[in-house]
């Protein structure tokens, strides 16, 4: 269940978009007890200047990303734009039954995108 991107393109500045992962949709609902799903989110958007310089509300872009954006602005064919990628992620905990009939609680790191950045 993802937030639609306008026009089918990169759709504005680089930022986190809403993406809900349903365990029923992926067929894991028979053994995952909780949660039923989680907001994983994803990153999408352009990292062209001046978005890359400003950070677009997220963390400041890496110096390397700023240089790539500058290179792209001056000579578009010489360098690709920096990538819009997760910059800060958070964990989730999943409660499930394993194949030994144990009830297991596992913490998984880096499952939710909190912030995106140009890298």
């Amino acid at each position: 269940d993802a937030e639609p991107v306008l026009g089918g393109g990169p759709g504005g500045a680089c930022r986190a978009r809403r993406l809900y992962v349903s365990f029923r949709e992926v067929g894991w609902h028979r053994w995952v007890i909780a949660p039923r799903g989680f907001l994983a989110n994803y990153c999408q958007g352009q990292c062209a200047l001046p978005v890359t310089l400003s950070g677009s509300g997220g963390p400041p872009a890496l110096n390397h990303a700023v240089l790539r954006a500058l290179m792209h602005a001056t000579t578009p064919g010489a360098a690709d734009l920096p990538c819009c990628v997760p910059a800060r992620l958070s964990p989730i905990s999943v409660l499930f039954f394993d194949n030994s009939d144990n009830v297991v609680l596992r913490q998984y790191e880096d499952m939710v995108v909190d912030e995106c950045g140009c890298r």
Partner: protein
Amino acid sequence: TRAPVPPGPAAALLQALGLRDAPQGAPRLRPVPPVMWRLFRRRDPQETRSGSRRMSPGVTLQPCHVEELGVAGNIVRHIPDRGAPTRASDPASAVGHCPEWTVVFDLSAVESAERPSRARLELRFAAAAAPEGGWELSVSQAGQGTGAGPRPVLLRQLVPALGPPVRAELLGTAWARNASWPRSLRLALALRPRTPAACARLAEASLLLVTLDPRLCHPLARPRR
């Protein structure tokens, strides 16, 4: 998006999540223990405040740490006793002659890379009446010491009265913290009344096992900048 997932990517995803195979599903007649619900609700920000990723003010969860139990870990397992179905119903509680029970815990799901931080044995006894002074519980490794004297007792604990479950830490007693995992753990339990009285019945036994898998704990793998 609703087509069946091909086995390759699905297997790779399960492996990334530290699972060998996709579990088959919920076993019948196996309720989720309240302690596991409590631990989950405490850890889940989306459960704590619906629709928001932020925790309640003042609640800061450390990564790879189980706050409620006060130990490091990113995996908590509630392992049921496998010996219960094969155990005959306890004989009538003859005064002074309490039966001995063998409880079996299947640890085959635990990976060798996991480091244990807590192994809590939980026992629930039932009896018509509690004797004055309670019972003395002794726990030993089943299948050891037979024929050559009594088994070495791993721990002794007073069972004061009926009601809350009896809890005993096994790590450091039943097996060492740095020892390799046994495939299964078999324990012999004996209950002795401190004064002549009827025995109790072992109603339920389980093992709450907390481990830390460093492969799934990035703060351990990545030094903080």
